[in-house]
């Protein structure tokens, strides 16, 4: 009994001190799960002698809630484009001026003057992609460049469709499909949106994240999902084809930013500069299979990514792709209510 107590006390002391052991030469990254290539971190650690820790989150809102509450201990966060204005507005980000960093010249021109961070004073590109249609063409070989695949599915696909469980992306596709614009307050149209979603949902099988294994093996025959995952499905099953919804599809870009109350801002800046190097950016993409926004990184990418049709938006569909801005609080509330009704 006594021995046990000694062990418990010793271990308690150890655990308590573990939290205090925050020495110099550290970097705490708060990023999406399975989104950070360990090799990238090893390389950074070796080059700069900094110990890197990555903590995962699973949604923009979780990350925002956590950081805003304070006492989090993170240096770097990777929010999606439409969330960056919130982070800036709430005063959570450090104006790190990556646009003045040495490697900034590598950033692809189209990702410099972005609406959510004009001129890139706060953030640098991490990865970008978009939602689109993935179809198993052995089941259905009609036109797949349309949201009708999941909103008015052909008979072959009924009850074999998976839709990403992301409120904004699905709402966006539906609003566009019915001829509206993002953040619309048009009640007539929104009513149609709700009715369309309620009706379409009865023809879906799931709203799940497990596309990369279930699409290739035939559990799903069609998906509305992110392009990287559909590319991976195609590599596993060549029958899978990617479609760009001509009515409109959402583009995302997650960007690296430094927190205002970061404990290691200098290391964080080093990291920012580090990932704008094409060779390092290619490492990011090699892991999660999305494009990165750094010019010249293609040559370092794994061969299957170099000419993947899923990663490039063809000219004819460029106008259909859209970055989703933050709607006003009233409109978001309206959308949440529609979503709740759809998911009941």
């Amino acid at each position: 009994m006594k021995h046990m107590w000694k062990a418990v006390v010793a271990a308690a002391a150890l655990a308590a001190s573990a939290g205090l052991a925050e020495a110099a030469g550290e970097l705490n990254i708060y990023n999406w799960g399975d989104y950070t290539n360990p090799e990238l971190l090893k390389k950074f650690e070796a080059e700069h002698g900094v110990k890197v820790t990555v903590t995962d989150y699973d949604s923009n809102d979780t990350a925002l809630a956590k950081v805003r509450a304070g006492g989090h201990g993170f240096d770097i966060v990777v929010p999606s484009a439409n969330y960056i204005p919130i982070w800036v507005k709430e005063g959570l980000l450090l104006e790190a001026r990556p646009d003045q960093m040495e490697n900034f010249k590598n950033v692809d021109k189209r990702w410099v003057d972005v609406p959510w961070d004009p001129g890139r004073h706060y953030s640098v590109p991490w990865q970008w992609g978009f939602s689109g249609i993935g179809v198993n063409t052995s089941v259905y070989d009609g036109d797949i460049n349309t949201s009708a695949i999941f909103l008015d599915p052909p008979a072959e696909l009924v009850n074999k469709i998976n839709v990403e469980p992301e409120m904004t992306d699905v709402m966006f596709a539906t609003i566009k499909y019915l001829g509206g614009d993002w953040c619309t307050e048009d009640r007539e149209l929104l009513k149609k949106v709700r009715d369309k979603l309620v009706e379409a949902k009865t023809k879906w099988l799931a709203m799940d994240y497990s596309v990369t294994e279930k699409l290739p093996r035939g559990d799903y025959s069609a998906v509305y999902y992110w392009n990287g995952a559909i590319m991976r499905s195609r590599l596993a099953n060549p029958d899978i084809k990617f479609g760009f919804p001509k009515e409109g599809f959402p583009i995302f870009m997650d960007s690296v930013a430094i927190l205002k109350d970061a404990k290691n801002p200098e290391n964080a800046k080093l990291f920012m500069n580090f990932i704008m190097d094409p060779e390092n950016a290619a490492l990011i993409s090699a892991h999660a299979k999305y494009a990165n926004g750094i010019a010249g990184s293609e040559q370092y990418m794994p061969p299957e990514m170099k000419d993947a049709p899923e990663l490039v938006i063809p000219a004819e569909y460029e106008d259909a792709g859209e970055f989703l801005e933050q709607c006003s609080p009233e409109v978001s509330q309206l959308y949440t209510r529609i979503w709740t009704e759809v998911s009941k």
Partner: protein
Amino acid sequence: MAREPELAARQAHRAEIRSRWLLSAPALIIIFVAAVGPLFVMLAYSVMVRGDYGDVRFGEFSSEGWFNVFFQRDIFDDTITYADAHLSIFWRSIRLSLITTVSTLILGFPTAYFIATRPRHTREVWVFLITIPFWTNLLIRTFAMQEVIRNEGVVNTLLQALGVIDQPIQILYTDWAILFGMVYVYLPLMVLPLYASMERLDFRLVEAGYDLYAGRFAVLRRIILPLVKPGLVAGSILVFIPSLGAYVTPRVLGGGKNMMLGNLIELQFGAGRNWPLGAALSITLMVIVMVALLFYVRNASRSGATGHG
């Protein structure tokens, strides 16, 4: 003369109560700090104005959160109706949790009884076997369940091989999947407390029952059941409540198409950015649970008294 022993007894009683408070102090303090206290914060949040991007505007009060739990303004013409989306999610959750509890009981009671009637030295091994699946993380067990019930999974393959069905049945992404998942995940929570009380069962009482020509079922119902009631109540509580707030299982096995209460609340704190509504929904859920608990406890203490009397 009669007064002194009475006084001494009262003092002893007071000392006993004091020591009982001391004994329970650590548990009470920990729970207050890390569970009850923060809940008052939650209650406060439910009556505040929602922040634009989550959180609340501290100090600004509003009844909007509570209003939205039960009523809604129509998206269309602003008429006020019952929030049937919320109500149907409440009902779904309660129904599924009740069925889960009953199912774990149907499987768990005989299992606990089986274990409790093994020879003393093998009982612990059986208990050990019950807990092992539990040593795997909830998420993983849910994924494992998914592999069993999917179209090409063991269940469908077996049924097809036996000729029971010719087409695979769609179980995954239905309410059945959620049910199977929750039963699977929470089953040990039913078996363990049931076993703990059955293990102490005095079988001489059972024998007496048979001596009085009671049938096996009568013995089970009239003798065994009342004696193991504390374990039964504990097990039901342990299963019912986490089922009601389940989040992972409906999301993974239900395919995320149909929400349960846990998902609805998470939506308000997450992408919905309506913390006051989320807080109000949570408190509503707590009230449902408390009513159920009160019912349980009442029931248990009533029949407990007759059982031991």
